């Protein structure tokens, strides 16, 4: 028998079972390394100032894709422009948090925990805020992280509420449950319990995931990229009736300190444009797939990265760690617009300057928790601070 309390926290709910307020799903796409937001979403009225600071990496103004009067996308993101036209994609400008931190992992911790940047919170913004509890007989995982790691967004006080998934077909072939020894080495015993719990849950979830994968389907082609395949699997599982509400996909390679674009390509080829191209095509395939299957209204998506990059390019043809950056949200129920106004780029950009924050990411988190998940615990989300809902979702 497992202890009912671990580190003072309740492991199993004593009364009611897990409560789901709705059947809505969310897909997070984590862009690892720090995406250069200024080469992703470009404020064209400030093009000249930007160009002076980063001429080596910029796409000519005429090659950009206009989204709204002042806001254009990198040409590699044509897929997202199409979604925008179809009313399924929006942009939030200059998203970040106060007192930015330029360490990869500290900044990603702030983004995934929703903490003030001068506080270390070990729980994730989802793990802390949704009605998730350790429940041994749970059949559908609360959250799935694609890959071999679990997402910090889903970190709870004791355990992580996301289960990692590489191949939906592989989870079913586990060895028999292991026998437990009886010992009084308490800390050691806690680790043994962790292993046993992981085995038990993996077996439970494995059957459910396997079933959903068998029942589900895809209705479009996806890019043959890692991200494309992650999103394809997620769409298949949603299509197959998996009740998991949160999925986390990953795209890595954004730490572009050097040669972020290929020289002589007008900023249209090279490492960063390839990543954007992958991102745009994968999201477009994903949304088209869901729309054809009539599932787009139930799914919301969001991209985020640990930080943007400095406004000035460095002499290595790259950019160093900066502060705020634009992000994308998508889905059948979103308000397809550009949220926020773009911060002014100085006439002469100071050394090391990053883009200042215009939207605190916690406003976005709060909007999602309150309006998308209709979470009842929102008052505990970000203690001591007041955040406003943004117009991410259509009001009808």
């Amino acid at each position, binding site marked *: 028998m497992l202890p009912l309390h671990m580190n003072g926290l309740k492991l199993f709910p004593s009364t009611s079972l897990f409560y789901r307020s709705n059947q809505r799903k969310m897909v997070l796409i984590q862009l690892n390394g720090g995406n250069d937001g200024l080469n992703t979403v470009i404020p064209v009225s400030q093009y000249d100032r930007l160009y002076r600071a980063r001429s080596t990496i910029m796409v000519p103004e005429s090659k950009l894709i206009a989204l709204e009067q002042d806001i254009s996308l990198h040409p590699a993101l044509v897929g997202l422009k199409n979604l925008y036209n179809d009313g399924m994609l929006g942009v939030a400008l200059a998203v970040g948090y106060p007192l930015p931190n330029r360490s990869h992992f500290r900044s990603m911790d702030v983004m995934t925990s929703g903490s003030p940047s001068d506080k*270390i919170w070990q729980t994730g913004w989802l793990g802390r805020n949704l009605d998730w509890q350790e429940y041994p007989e749970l059949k559908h995982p609360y959250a799935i992280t694609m890959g*071999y*790691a679990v997402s910090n967004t889903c*970190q709870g006080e004791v355990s*992580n509420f996301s289960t990692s998934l590489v191949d939906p077909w592989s989870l079913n072939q586990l060895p028999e449950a292991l026998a437990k020894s*009886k010992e009084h*080495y308490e800390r050691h015993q806690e680790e043994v319990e962790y292993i046993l719990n992981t085995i038990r849950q993996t077996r439970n979830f494995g059957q459910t995931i396997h079933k959903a994968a068998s029942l589900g389907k895809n209705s479009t082609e996806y890019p043959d990229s890692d991200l494309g395949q992650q999103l394809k699997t997620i769409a298949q599982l949603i299509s197959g009736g998996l009740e998991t509400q949160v999925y986390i996909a990953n795209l890595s390679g954004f730490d572009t300190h*050097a040669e972020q674009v290929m020289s002589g390509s007008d900023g249209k080829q090279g490492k960063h444009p390839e990543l954007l191209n992958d991102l745009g095509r994968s999201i477009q395939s994903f949304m088209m797939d869901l729309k054809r299957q009539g599932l787009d209204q139930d799914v919301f998506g969001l991209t985020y990265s640990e930080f943007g990059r400095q406004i000035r390019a460095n*002499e290595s043809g790259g950019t160093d*760690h900066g502060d705020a950056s634009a992000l994308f949200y998508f889905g059948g129920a979103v308000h397809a617009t550009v949220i926020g106004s773009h911060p002014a780029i100085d006439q002469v950009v100071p050394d090391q300057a990053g883009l200042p924050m215009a939207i605190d990411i916690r406003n976005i988190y709060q909007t999602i928790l309150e309006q998308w998940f209709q979470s009842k615990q929102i008052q505990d989300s970000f203690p001591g601070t007041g955040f406003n809902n943004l117009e991410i979702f259509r009001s009808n």
Partner: protein
Amino acid sequence: MTAPFPFHNTSALTPYQGTWDLLRAGHLLRRTLFGPDQRQISWAVSHGMKATINTLLTNREMPAPPLHYKGDHEPQVSIGKTWISAPYQENIHVTQMARRSRSLFAWNMGLILDDAISIREKMVLFWHNHFALRAIEDPRYLYRFTTTIRQHATGNFRALIRAMTIDPSMLVFLNGNRNHQEAPNENYARELLELFTLGKGELAGPGDYTNYTEQDVKALARSLTGWQDIGFLATKVGQNPEAQFIPDRHDRESKQLSHRLNHQVILDQGMNEYQEVLEMLLDHPATAVNLCSRLYRWFVDAHIDEQTQQEVIQPLADILRNSDYELTPTLQALFQSSHFYQINVMGTMLKNPLDLLTSLVRPLSITIPLPLSQRYDAWYRLFDLVRGLQMDWYELPQVAGWDAYYRAPLYYRHWLNAATLSPRMELVQRFLEEGYPAFEGNGPRMLLSPERLLDRSDWSEEAVLFTENITKILLPVPLSSTSIFELSRLLDGSRDSLTWKQLINHDDQESILVILKERIGIIVKKLTTLPEFQLT
């Protein structure tokens, strides 16, 4: 329920004076070696704690370099000779890179499987995690990098950080080679402060990380300008991977540091300037604290509370500074401390993939074929298994290293989750049942030999005693006597068969020996599939 040993000792670094037995000696060796076997643990028991620690920390000769072991991609190197000084050839360099990488990785696994009682390879891996890098495509660069780390593994941190700062692989990975006076590239300077030396403190204000500020990142980047690597995929004879200082690229202006670093000003010192920067960082008390915290998480426990900070980390940091950054006295103090032998740190670490693999293949002695090409193939196969379990020490996931050693609250638990569980379990099962082919083609398979876990002279005729001795080699904490008793009944076989005692008194007969081996196999399989076996 009472704990059989004291949980807490007021002076944590006081040398441990308690019982020295299989449990304590095993704990020390499991944390400092890769998969210690019975012979090593028994040696440690009989020689005592002090001699064991001395042996662990004794300097060893550097190993012979990796060899060209098969294939026709090395026109200038014959089979059995090393490629580390051989240039690349234009038209075949892609194949050469791939084959030399294999050779390097295989060779490194060979070093890990070595049976010496030495902490060196575990410290080498510690430094690979500390100076995490990835995507360095030239194996000659990587050989130089890992060799530098190995030379200083238990030596002096000053010498190591000096070498790392201008190491060719590091210059590539953290863009030091792009860092020049007209455009300082912050990448290395930032990680030098945040991870390699001071460590990042709490965010105290805009761009202020308590121990240093954004201003210092920039200033240090400028101080480190001028260095470049040469010899990347070199095709010229005699051109080894090297660092060179190009005075024109160096920023000769003085650099003003922030109040966090006492408003110091670094004046131009050309190619010696980086050493001055490093001296300043070594003078700062935070550097030793950061290093000792990381050593503690590597060897002892992930969780550092206020008390541990005061009673263990801080005193260790003092030792490190007082010995002018010689690592041995600090490691010695840690491994002989009563804190290290507390029951509450034993078996609390989820094995990383390399510990998991070696805790099978070393004590249960797989046979590595002797011929050169087969030996390298077998080593490479083992390296690849570890890589498949998400641990590749030449391709770290983050510049901060593996999640397991810095990311709270899961720490070591990062190694085991729904996606890695099955492959970890399958590894154990497959090694026991069908094994892995040692080399390409229809060669022999690498299979575990459970009967070699205990020396024949230690095969007790008492099934319970025999079982207990096996568990002490394989598991990090003792099982209860009830568990041991239940397990031992597997040795006695089913109702109608001969008991363990009856069998063992006739083990000179081949047919009886077969049955004995079978029964040992059953009990080893049971033990290695326990959750306890995933811990160290």
